[in-house]
């Protein structure tokens, strides 16, 4: 049984804690490793996991995630193989897998066939999807399809989104709102922008959905800044950059997985403050 996104956030709220959601690229460097990393992240007590579908032409992603996509695609990543691997993992009772959120380009979904994609994603154990290149206005029909497939469709709001757009966007969103911390692409930043707090406050007045912040986050200090203002945070590049070490002949696969787990464990601990 997979947990739903809203259940996860509700539980965390009752524990007065933020959700930590690491991002990994599926198939980097191969699907067997993806499965082992998912198990390790589950053991470290992360609250949700964002699984990125490698895409050949990402425009919202910075170099770290793009390189990771390239590694996965060069190793022959296929959407269907990922779904098969996850289906098996979700059925494994020895693993306490948190809610999985797919991050996937609309280019992939459309080509695969939206209904087929949604069905296979739900069967594979996904609770929701983030489709970064399908902005609220374009999502119309797809919102209905995701509902029918009992998946959440998470919407993104950027610091440049004006209030009237935000109001429209949050109406069609479910699961949580993905608050982009900085106008730009994914990638680690030293500091979170000062305006972020005000942005979160204004969002809070527009929706009851949980607010999760992503883009640029990498350190426990960042998490402290968000406490009490956001319901969760997403870390991508700071984790994904560690996957490059799988091709380092001086490190064993187990060591790399353990070090990814250690970092995730530290960030998970930071949510407890």
């Amino acid at each position, binding site marked *: 049984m997979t947990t739903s996104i809203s259940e996860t956030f509700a539980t965390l709220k009752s524990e007065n804690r933020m959700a930590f959601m690491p991002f990994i690229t599926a198939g980097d460097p191969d699907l067997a490793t993806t499965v082992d990393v998912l198990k390790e992240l589950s053991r470290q007590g992360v609250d949700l996991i964002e699984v990125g579908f490698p*895409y*050949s*032409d*990402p*425009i*919202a*992603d*910075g*170099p770290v995630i*793009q390189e990771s996509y*390239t590694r996965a*695609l060069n190793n022959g990543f*296929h*959407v269907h193989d990922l779904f098969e691997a996850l289906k098996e993992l979700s059925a494994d009772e020895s693993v306490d897998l948190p809610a999985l959120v797919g991050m996937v*380009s*609309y*280019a*992939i*979904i*459309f*080509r*695969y066939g939206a209904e087929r994609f949604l069905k296979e994603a739900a069967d594979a154990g996904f609770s929701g999807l983030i489709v*970064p*290149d*399908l*902005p*609220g*206005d*374009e999502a119309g029909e797809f919102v209905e399809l995701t509902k029918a497939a009992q998946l959440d469709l998470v*919407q*993104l*709001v*950027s610091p*440049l*989104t*004006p209030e009237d*757009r935000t109001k429209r*966007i949050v109406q069609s969103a479910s699961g949580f709102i993905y608050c*982009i911390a*900085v*106008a*730009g*692409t994914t990638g680690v930043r030293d500091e979170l922008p000062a305006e972020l707090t005000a942005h979160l406050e204004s969002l809070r007045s527009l929706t009851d959905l949980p607010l999760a912040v992503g883009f640029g986050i990498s350190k426990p200090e960042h998490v402290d800044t968000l406490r009490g203002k956001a319901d969760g945070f997403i870390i991508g590049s700071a984790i994904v950059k560690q996957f490059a070490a799988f091709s380092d002949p001086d490190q064993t696969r187990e060591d790399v997985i353990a070090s990814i787990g250690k970092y995730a464990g530290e960030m998970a601990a930071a949510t407890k403050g």
Partner: protein
Amino acid sequence: MTTSLSNVPDASGRFGEFGRRFVPETLMHALEELTQEYEKAKQDPSFQAELDDLLKHYVGRPNPLYFAERLTEHCGGGKIYFKREDLNHTGAHKINNTMGQALLTMRMGKKRVIAETGAGQHGVASAVACARFGLECIVYMGEEDIRRQKLNVFNMKMMGAEVRGVSSGSKTLRDAVNEAMRDWMSSVETTHYIIGSVIGPHPFPMMVRDFQSVIGKEAREQCLAQTGKLPDQVIACVGGGSNSAGMFYPFIDDEGVKLTGVEAGGRGPEPGEHASTLSYGAKGVLHGSFGYVLQDDDGQTMDVHSISAGLDYPGVGPEHSYWKDSGRVNYTAITDDEALEGFQTMARLEGIIPAIESSHAIAYAVKAARQASPDETIVVCLSGRGDKDVNEVARLLGRDI
């Protein structure tokens, strides 16, 4: 009720089912602003007057519609005319668009411009427009294209643009577009992205088509004046599709005029060997819009090949996708070898060194003219001149310069 094919896109940027905006939320507001600003500019007579003045005194428009007598004789059929975009300042059609978009950049109060380029013609045209108006200019260009198009890289730098090499993916046009989009994601408040073709999210495909339509409008009038009738056929090469869209659009409602877009057939029809999106692609999403894309079953964009850096693109403008499905425009492909031959034929018979992109249209026109009767007229968009290509052509022909 039949709606005119020219009455697109709608307010959300749809050409039938094609077009729209598939971009990260961070860019949405800027696209809405750009759409509004462009609509306002279009209705502002002073904007059009300023653009017309620049096109006349700076770009050198109207350029001629030239009857290619010797090439016509060589083919022994229809009469071939060339719309001479190669005679524009900077030697290609790209400058029609960059002049318009540079004026818009200033209307929006932005001081920084980014652009992507394949063959370098759009990069040069952007650098020129920025130099002319004192805007900062950054051009993204794939490393492979930097190698193929050294002359244009030098020219851009001379005009004060910064050329940023892109080493991801296939190191060509598509990767340059990705990189420019990424820059725009973090700079959109201060920067305008001058997209170089009728691709990308709404309003770009519409706006670039409008700016390039000056080609077809002039050609239409010139044809009527010089031959007393509309052309029987109009031919243009298609990379992203801007010179062809500009050429075709003013003829779209003239049902008797046959329109043909010529894509890069590369080394042949196998995947990865060509860039013939409309011949071999499937519907999908690339670079912010919905249209035909060369992609695999998972929606991953495929590698493409063409002898010409300007046609080496796995997508195509949404309006072309619309024209293809409506059957209004016929799309075909010309191989690398045929284009090289078209290049040489044109040089020898007409004393014009064409761009290798345009050589695709020329090679097809030669075939079409042979099939046509002498009372038929064929108008070809000579989208650019070939100075930038001579090194590459010499290399391919095994000659020294």
